[in-house]
């Protein structure tokens, strides 16, 4: 009986360690809503608007009203808007190196992601992603050729990025509405 007891204890303890919530946001601008609002309204919202307009220009029929099964979906959770924005921004950074997507479009998307992280003073869990921000802000000296989007084949990555952009924008709208009078 005693060995069964100890077995159960030893099983629980590692589980507790693994499942211990690591929900603490690595964003430091949490309470400075006024400052966030000013930066968002004066700077970031315009970039987001441009990105949304670019997204609308690149029409892809297979993206229309279709949620891709394997795409990662981020929700703008109630009372956790900053954390949600952080997750969305960090996720969007991975599209920066996707060669199948138009270069200017993914660069703009990365710019908005980096801007979001900067306004909220957030870091991504995987620190490699933030290196993208230094590349984005640096002058573009690369001569890498852009792979044109195949016209017939549906570009799942592009559709996924569009969904991310839409989610990010909605989450910012939600956050702005909450902190506004």
């Amino acid at each position, binding site marked *: 009986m005693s060995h069964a007891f100890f077995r159960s204890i030893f099983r629980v303890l590692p589980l507790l360690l693994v499942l211990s919530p690591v929900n603490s946001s690595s964003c430091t601008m949490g309470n400075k809503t006024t400052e966030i609002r000013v930066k*968002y*309204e004066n700077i970031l*919202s315009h970039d987001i*608007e441009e990105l*949304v307009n670019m997204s609308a220009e690149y029409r892809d029929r297979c993206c229309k*009203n279709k949620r891709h099964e394997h795409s990662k979906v981020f*929700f*703008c959770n109630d009372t956790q808007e900053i954390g949600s924005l952080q997750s969305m921004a960090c996720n969007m950074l991975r599209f920066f190196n996707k060669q199948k997507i138009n270069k200017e479009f993914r660069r703009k998307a990365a710019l908005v992601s980096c801007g979001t992280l900067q306004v909220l003073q957030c870091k991504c869990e995987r620190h490699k992603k933030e290196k993208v921000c230094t590349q984005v802000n640096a002058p573009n000296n690369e001569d890498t050729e852009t792979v044109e989007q195949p016209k017939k084949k549906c570009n799942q990555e592009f559709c996924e990025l569009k969904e991310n952009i839409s989610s990010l*924008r*909605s*989450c910012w*709208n*939600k956050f*702005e*509405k909450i902190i*506004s*009078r």
Partner: protein
Amino acid sequence: MAVPGASLVPILLLGLGTCLAASPSPKGVECILFNEEYMTCTWGSGQTLTANYSLYYWYENKLPVVECQQYLWDRSVRIGCRFEQSEIIQFQAFYVRVNASCNGQTLEIPSNRMELQNLVKPEAPVNLTIHNMSGNQLQLTWSSPYPKEQCLEHVVKYKSNKDTSWTNQEVKGVIFSFPSVDYEKYYTFYVRSKINNYCGNTQLWSEWSVPVFWGNNSTSKGSSGPERPRSPRRPRSVLTVSPRLVAGVAEEQLQWFWIHTVLIPIASCLLLLVLVVLLVRMERVWVIIMPRIPNPSKNFDDLFITHNGDFQVRWLPWLTTPLSWWQLPTPLTPLCPSRNGSESLKMLWRVSSPTTVKASAT
């Protein structure tokens, strides 16, 4: 505005065959959040629809699917659904499905994905008030029934009784400054609102507010017939300036205008002229301002007469202090008349004061 549900239109017609064969096409499902207080989703009118419709809705993360609790009717036909505030969730994907049944046949028609924060139509602004500012400026202020004023942008529409078209001006806050107003004209102002890009992505403007007027309407009789949009749900608040009061204000302004631009300059010029005349006339004052040039001619009357005005005087440069004649190093010789032209008469000047000069000839 037909919104994500337009794809329902042909399916509604084709799927149900004879039921809707003779009817014109409905507009499609159109959902609008009125001031974030309630929402209506409509798909047509009783004139065009004859089938039995049912609406079901759900949110992306929240099941189950729920049927509409409050249908909108027109001529015994369901034409829409009303959602109360408790049933509305913004910033979550919203789906609607309309079931159309006719003669035992039922067709399920899903709608597109909607985001309700982008379907908000705020209520029209109220309490339009005009303030008179300095420098012929007007200031128009208003308030909005929508709870989050910082999420709104506004447009002011105005024209005078002498204008042929309206002028639209976008405004971010709740204050509009009209820089230069003409007191002879009669102005009409309207305001409407929309959710701005910071809080949503919508093109739904509110209705125009009840108008407010300003100016002199004595010459115009109904010349600018303003529309009166209806705001049936809330009491109206209107500020109208009466013509008599406006006329009185205009007259007072005119008086001040004459005083400032005509009377005061003329009075100033007259005063200046009087001062100048007095100044010239009072010799004592004039002499101080314009001292006379010293004229030592009186001291040389004898010499002048003797030599018939033909003599020369040379100033001794080494003399910096007043000296008397006995202090001169060399004897003086008189100057011969200028007939010789080569000799000069050395004169001794005794400067006794800065203003008088005393000369003596030896």
